């Protein structure tokens, strides 16, 4: 009559595999990436060559850095929608100021709005507790407005892409894009920061349980302000890299990267609710998105169909990944 409480049963292979994957969330992600590349190669035999790899890397890198901004902010339960505007601003300012200024001065001028916007975001979110979505959206609008006004004042001076950025953005050395020279240190730095520094720890802690962090002596506003400034700085640097890659300063240069950067972070396993995720996953997420874009470009189907496919693949990948990783 009385049922007995469930006893631990021998763990099945499926569960063990799941556990294994759950402990190493990168593996299923890499598998998904490889599947996409294989599909691409099947659809267009020969496309996956050295040159394609270099190009994919070139485009994935700016996306991956911006997605790094999203990863860091999402770890704290936030989001940074101003990265597109910040990147565009620093790119545009760099390209216009370099004409008459010393490169170092131009660089500083280009990074100035990034710092300012980051600071305003950080104070708004960290001190006034404005929802990050609204805060960064607002500053992004304001930034765009200022950029338009600025553009008006410099239109006569013309624009120029500094050779160095050009080399960095598009150059390839021994088959490796030069952008890796920027990206590898940045990526290592972000990964190191998230895993091996006090600040990184705090990002996770604040996002996981703000009260717990507080009780441990963490001052929320300090962490958040530093975070959004850092995020903006990275976005600014991405802007410089991107202008070197695209070589056409425009007022909406990096805007198209914003939503994909959020998507890359989410696909890479970072939780939008904070406290969970990491940068290596995000990098793979950015690669997945870049390959997916190529795949959809190559597909001979109406644009509408491509977008539908894109949406469903993003949803499917995220759902599959959650299923695999989440141990419920």
């Amino acid at each position, binding site marked *: *009559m*009385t*049922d*007995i*409480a*469930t006893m631990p049963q021998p763990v099945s292979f499926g569960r063990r595999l799941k556990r294994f994957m759950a*402990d190493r969330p990168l593996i299923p992600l890499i598998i998904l990436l490889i599947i996409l590349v294989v599909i691409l190669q099947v659809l267009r035999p020969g496309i996956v060559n050295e040159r394609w790899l270099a190009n994919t890397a070139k485009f994935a890198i700016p996306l991956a850095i911006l997605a790094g901004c999203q990863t860091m902010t999402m770890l704290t339960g936030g989001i940074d929608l101003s990265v597109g505007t910040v990147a565009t601003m620093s790119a545009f300012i760099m390209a216009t100021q370099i004409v008459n200024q010393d490169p170092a001065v131009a660089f500083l001028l280009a990074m100035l709005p990034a710092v300012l916007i980051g600071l305003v975001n950080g104070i708004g979110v960290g001190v006034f507790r404005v929802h990050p979505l609204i805060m960064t959206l607002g500053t992004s609008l304001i930034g765009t407005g200022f950029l338009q006004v600025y553009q008006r004042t410099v239109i006569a001076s013309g624009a120029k892409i500094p050779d160095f950025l050009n080399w960095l953005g598009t150059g390839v050395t021994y088959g490796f894009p030069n952008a890796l020279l920027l990206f590898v240190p940045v990526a290592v730095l972000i990964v*190191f920061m998230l895993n*091996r*520094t*006090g*600040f990184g*720890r*705090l990002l*996770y*802690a604040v996002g*996981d*349980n703000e*009260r*717990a*962090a*507080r*009780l*441990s*002596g*963490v*001052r929320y506003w*300090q962490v958040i302000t*530093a975070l959004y400034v850092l995020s903006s700085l990275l976005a600014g640097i991405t802007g410089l890299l991107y202008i070197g890659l695209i070589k056409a300063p425009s007022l909406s240069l990096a805007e198209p990267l914003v939503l994909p950067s959020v998507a890359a972070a989410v696909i890479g396993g970072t939780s939008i609710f904070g*406290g*969970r995720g990491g940068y290596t996953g995000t990098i793979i997420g950015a690669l997945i998105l870049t390959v997916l874009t190529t795949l959809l470009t190559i597909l001979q189907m109406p644009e509408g169909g491509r977008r539908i496919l894109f949406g469903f693949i993003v949803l499917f990948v995220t759902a599959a990944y959650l299923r695999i990783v989440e141990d419920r």
Partner: protein
Amino acid sequence: MTANPLLDATGVAKNYGAVAALRNASLSVLPGEVHALMGANGAGKSTLVKILTGAIKADAGRILIRGQQLDVRSPAAARRAGLLPVYQEPSLIPDLDVLSNLRLTGTPVEAFRAWVRELGIPDLDIRETARHIPLAILRVLDLARALAVEPDVLLLDEMTAALPANLAEKVLEVVRRQGDAGRSVIFISHRFVEISALCDRATVLRDGSTVGVVDIEPGIEERIVEMMLGARIEKTRVTARAANEVAIAGGGRPRLSVRNLQLGTKLNDVSFDLANGEVAGVFALEGQGQDELFAALAGSIRPTGGSIDVDGAPVKFSHPSDAIQAGIAYVPGDRTEALAMQRSVRENIALPFSAALRKWGPIRMRREQVVVSGAIGRLQIDTRAQGEVQRLSGGNQQKVTIARWIAANARTILCFDPTRGIDVGTKQEIYKLLRELAGQGKSVLFYTSEMEEVQRVCDRVIVIFGGRVVDTFPVEEADEPALMRAAYGLPRGAKADVGILAEVKPGSNAEAAS
């Protein structure tokens, strides 16, 4: 018994990961009966209520309602079956007003109003948003809402814990009448006074299993306590006092000196000292201001008056980090408040190391490893699942919250009910640890809702009632009747037994509703 049980649950089990909340619980309630469900903290009472009312799913067990096996899968289904709970946490929707909350659950408004008046709240504004209503009133509203639909079985989980005496009195009256009117009530409380005044029978749970069902009659308390605590009592008394001998007498300046601390209406004129090498207990019934006292000492909220001195120097805390800077660490009772659940044991323990701005740089991993594993070893944390704290058992989670401050070498630890929902063995370890800390000259302020913990761990006990320090005992004098009396605000030395409802009349010292 001749009548058929209205509700009959057998073999109920529920596991949360590694934690067995219920192992083999059974409960049988007769029509028209007020049935007490008793058990120590973490025995599984709330879990059983949640299972009976469909709020969570049992892993095993059989539940018969009026002799029929019903599948109560959701609170809505439980309502239809005539089972209405008042959970331990208020369950009114915070952003809706009372009226909308009634409509949400399909509760008749007039009946509700009548019950609210009956329960001693004559002037309730039914348009008030739940968020703005004080906790005590919310609990009563929860009850009135349940009563208004005239349930067959009413399940009250620590209904009176957060109530001031006058409201509690009304609630008890009403509950007693429910039984007379032929309705069954399952009544959970840690207060024997209420049980003996109210209940017909009691089911006792221990560590997730039903260990006995008894009729309530004079003198039954001892037996219930025995059943609740099992073999624990004898063992522990010995070890506790033995450990105590190591304590260093706190010479010189007190470590912490609190004077006339004031916090709104919650704390009045609280003054006491905490010496080096001392474990001072704080004992109080629920909601007497102990939460606020600890929060103020931890820098979580700012007191509205009074002073706090640390090592003789006055301090003002505006953030927990200030308190930590002064060497005061706070271990909250609710571990979900203290832990980053998705992070590892190591990160949780090392969290305070990174908090200050100047510690944001690279972490010296090897040094951290040594310190963290030292703390883990010291508390014997079972780290088989250390990747994420949420996979640890509750007791081990609790240990992590303490280990953090052991690792950080805090000089003063404020422990708020650290053994809440913790198993016997772990409790022992925590007692031992606290004594050891005192032995090293550290000081501990230790709130507990369990009387025997006071005797096992503390050198001295401070009793709080209605936001005031009503008494301070050396531990030798802190036997249960004395503590209980003080906790109810009765003067020391009063001869009458505690445990009779009549003692707790309003006008003794009980405060009116806030």
